[in-house]
């Protein structure tokens, strides 16, 4: 058994688990944060994407104990309670989700993409950046639109901030 301590969505949390427990199961079962999903078993679908120490990772392919000591953001921690992050808002505005199952991973991926490559994303770079996330509902058309819109919105907000 391992003791795992993480900062999740700004809060320090600890729990005991088997060494073989995956981070995604720790998040879902020990922390009750069920927004992070499991859609495959070969590290491909991206439904489990969270941010660990500021970068997107697949929480299904990391042991919880491996992550111990790191800072994790899940879909539940992206925006204050009741509010939507600009990427979440863009997904709603542009109908970038249907069944919602891949959505948390998609949103966390898009946020990472914009955080690190924002301001000059285009359709091709967004599609390439979504390589690790599979959606079966939307055909990606509206996801791409949503990420483009969020990128423009966030870059605009950045420029506005810089100007102030």
């Amino acid at each position: 058994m391992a003791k795992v301590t993480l900062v999740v969505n700004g809060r320090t949390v600890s729990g005991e688990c088997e060494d073989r427990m995956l981070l995604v199961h720790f998040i879902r079962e020990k922390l009750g944060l069920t927004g992070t999903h499991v859609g495959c078993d070969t590290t491909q679908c991206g439904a489990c994407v969270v941010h660990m120490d500021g970068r997107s990772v697949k929480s299904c392919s990391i042991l919880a104990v491996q992550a111990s000591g790191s800072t994790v953001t899940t879909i539940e921690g992206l925006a204050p309670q009741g509010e939507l992050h600009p990427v979440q808002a863009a997904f709603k505005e542009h109908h970038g989700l249907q069944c919602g199952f891949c959505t948390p991973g998609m949103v966390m991926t898009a946020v990472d993409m914009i955080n690190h490559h924002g301001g000059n994303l285009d359709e091709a770079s967004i599609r390439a950046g979504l390589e690790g996330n599979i959606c079966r509902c939307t055909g990606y058309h509206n996801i791409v639109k949503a990420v483009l819109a969020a990128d423009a919105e966030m870059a605009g907000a950045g420029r506005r901030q810089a100007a102030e």
Partner: protein
Amino acid sequence: MGVEGIGARVARKEDKRFLTGKGRYTDDMVVPGMKHACFVRSPHAHAKIRGIDASAAKAMPGVIDVLDGKQLQADGIGNLICGWMIHSKDGSPMKMGAWRPLAVDTVRYVGDAVAIVVADSAVEARDAAEAVEVDYEELPAVTEVLATLEPGAPQLHPEAPGNLIFDWQLGDPEATDRAIASAAHVTEVDIVNNRLSPNAMEPRATLGIYDAAEDHYTCYTTSQNPHVARLVMSAFYNVAPENKLRVIAPDVGGGFGSKIFIYPEEIVCLWASKKTGVPVKWTSDRTEAFLTDAHGRDHVSKVKMAFDADHRIIGLKVDTIANLGAYMSLFSSCVPTYLYATLLSGQYDIPAIHANVRTVYTNTAPVDAYRGAGRPEATYLLERTMEIAARELGMSPAELRRKNFIRSFPHQTPVIMNYDAGDYEASLNAAMQAADWSGFAERRAQSEARGRKRGIGMSCYIEACGLAPSSAVGSLGAGVGLWESAEVRVNAVGTIEVFTGSHSHGQGHETTFAQVVADRLGVPIDSINIVHGDTDKVQMGMGTYGSRSGAVGMSAVVKALDKVEAKAKKIAAHLMEADESDIVVENGELKVAGTDKTLPWPQVALAAYTAHNLPSGMEPGLKESAFYDPSNFTFPAGCYIAEVEVDPETGETDIVQFVAADDFGNIINPMIVEGQVHGGLAQGIGQALLEGVHYDPETGQLLTASYMDYTMPRADDLPSFKLSHQNTPCPNNPLGVKGCGEAGAIGSPPALINAITDAIGHDRLAMPATPMKVWHALHAAH
């Protein structure tokens, strides 16, 4: 159209919970005392079970119990059934082999469930499942349709000699043969429709809870139709009577058909919960999903299409063999028959059609409805044949289609369907214009200059959806009626709850159904809640599949709204001392036409519940229910055009543009309809270019059991799509809607293959057109 009414692009009410991680899917459910299940599954495609020794597994850490098929059978749990009776052309009923929820003496495909392990945690259950020793005697296996019909092929079920389930026909064989004999030209094509795995991103899951004190069961499950699940589990599987069984399908992460059916796991987990005294949850992993979710398609066909000298189609003959896998799944029999052969007239006026369909058993996962279900198979067959015919006849593909379009409605086809409305040329013209068809030659020349091969292809599809008039499907063998139910409950404060038997698993019912109510009553959609997916809340329902939620489910809501509105008007007339016929509903108020007398909804609702001053003899309350049984199918149709560039060095296909022109009748929410088309297109393009289930023909092992080998369409495989809508409203339902959920998957595969074969210059190419296959096809051409 109001900002929230019919036709408005309303952002979805349900999105916030999904976007913030607050969706509640079956695997998210946790109840006190809950334990976890793992199924012991056959590693063999075909084997006898000599014995099962679970003693070592039972002794492992965390294990509560291991239960097998003999125990299940002893407790009287019934076999899984196919709910649609098909008779062979000799009059004999289909030959349904026994499908036990847990195999007792024989396993018939890799993944067939043999036992269930219940343990404290999912990993402990899996550890123990590996320790269950099943003594198998391996038998030879067969996976392909032609092989399974061979004399001497391994036999799957004693009930079905020769592995033949039925040999069925539709249409007029003699008239069709005469047409072919007299034809000026006959196009003959062999068509294979590749086998697919639906791959909803949420794997199937179920949580069975038995309450011994009440002798009551609750089943959380990933279902598109919880009421059908309850009905079938009660009536056929003897799990529990309906009043003792509650089925809840909470948020469901996509279905595409695969979550219509009742699978062994729901039944076994409910039974296991009673046996072990603990709630039992099972969640599939992706490999289990590939092994055990019902697959789709898998047809092999021979086609003859006969033309007269003027290039009019005079006859169509189709001989199809459909693979139903190891067992007959719930609706497996109707997919390659009444959902397939009935669409073989396509958009064309064909005087004589004959379809012969044989269905067969193989040592593969059961095959059942997957997005489109029968109609993609019909469309692919027909639209590939039309394209090849146009090439043989030296005609443009558009002109051959135009010449043969049905132009007056209603139109009775020779294969049951009566098309009610349509304008096929309008969609064809819109698609060709959007695709700049006339500029293709120039674009092709530019591609050639860059060393690329460019091709363009079209597909004119029709589908039948909105299943379906109950009496009609009843006469064709359906075991259930296919109406839908709704209840509109106006609360005392004027807010509204709508209870529908349709189920939303991505389609956006919580928004579109609310739009219908908002449009009718003029109340804001935020005051309307759509309730679905729980047999304890919703009176009854047939669920969501076959693009039926709009045409059938919403129509039921409209019928209930009719009753609510009528009663509200009576109350308002009484309160305002006006004539009932003078009351109009506008902007959330009931008004006396031509006066300034008005009552807001909440006041009318309150009056209905206080009942202090109601018209004489009127019951208190404002809550009405309705059942709607459609009078016909609806017939969405459209034209899709794909343009591709093939890299001759690698065989890679790049979709340069994809145009979809669809006629869905009236549209409730264009944004959501477009989303449905996008998703359907992605699955159709997936079928055409990427996806295919492969079994090893010798061993019956599934070769595509994960995303390492089964190619799911990813964002960089697809283009953005160009969409347009034409509109001939459906005359047979109150909203004039047709159905849009499956069109994309139905219409797109032939457009792609027509485009690629145009690029490579010959027609010897089967789906999926992977880079390797296209490269080989290019080489074969030289």
